[in-house]
């Protein structure tokens, strides 16, 4: 049987002193909809190890990463093979909660390195200054012509969640834009 196939199937990671771009495929992703003021929201937060972040554009990280997507919407991201869906369902009980497995809906491209912000600024209109968009921040926005969820994972690291059908386009775009930051010590590998 064929192996699982990640969306940008022919994407080759690149890495230089300034910038590293790679795909992080097959993460578990759950779309969660719930009234943030409800008991269910509190219970789910408890079960996930941290309250659901209610400040717009923030994420928390405990048993899973929980990204604020909207006032009653979160993206719960677990490592490959995790089952946050089960945790959430158990915590929510019979409450009115929307729980949808969207693991294959988006893939994740990681962008790291001192020039990561410069790279993203080519296509992202958000202010990515470290004081504005540092670790713990996330946003749904546009990167080039693709809708993405952008999350700052470190001082100079980002995860870009992109719809699977756009992943090939976005990978091409990123590599083209990255050209001038990949001149120093570039390594490409499968």
């Amino acid at each position, binding site marked *: 049987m064929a192996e699982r196939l990640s969306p940008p199937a022919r994407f080759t990671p690149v890495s230089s002193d300034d910038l590293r771009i790679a795909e992080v495929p097959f993460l578990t992703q759950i779309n969660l909809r719930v009234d943030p003021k409800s008991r269910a929201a509190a219970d789910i937060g408890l079960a996930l190890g941290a309250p659901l972040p209610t400040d*717009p*554009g923030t994420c928390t990280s405990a048993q899973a990463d929980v990204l604020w997507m*909207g*006032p009653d*919407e979160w993206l719960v991201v677990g490592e490959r093979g995790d089952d946050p869906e089960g945790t959430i369902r158990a915590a929510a009980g019979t409450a009115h909660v929307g729980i949808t497995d969207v693991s294959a809906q988006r893939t994740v491209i990681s962008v790291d390195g001192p020039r990561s912000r410069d790279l993203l600024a080519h296509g992202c*209109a958000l202010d990515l200054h470290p004081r504005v968009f540092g670790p713990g921040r996330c946003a*749904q*926005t546009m990167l080039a012509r693709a*809708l993405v969820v952008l999350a700052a994972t470190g001082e100079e690291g980002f995860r870009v969640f992109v719809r699977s059908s756009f992943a090939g386009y976005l990978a091409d775009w990123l590599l083209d834009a990255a050209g001038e930051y990949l001149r120093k010590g570039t390594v490409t590998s499968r």
Partner: protein
Amino acid sequence: MLLIPCPWCGPRDEAEFHYGGQAHVAYPENPAALSDEEWARYLFFRDNPEGRFAERWNHTAGCRRWFNAVRNTATNEIEAREVIA
């Protein structure tokens, strides 16, 4: 490129939004009870002032929430906005 204040995500570029036209145009309680003229008014007639205009926006590329704003159509300045709840 207008800077539109999403009540949730903060100010974002207009390219992230979908315009929804005049605000506060409610779907009629009972469409069947309306005359053709009244129904046509609901379907097709919207205010179009030069000046303050209460209108709807959807932050389609962000939190996907609809909200209302008051914008001056002569200057494009957004004077107020409100969450739809």
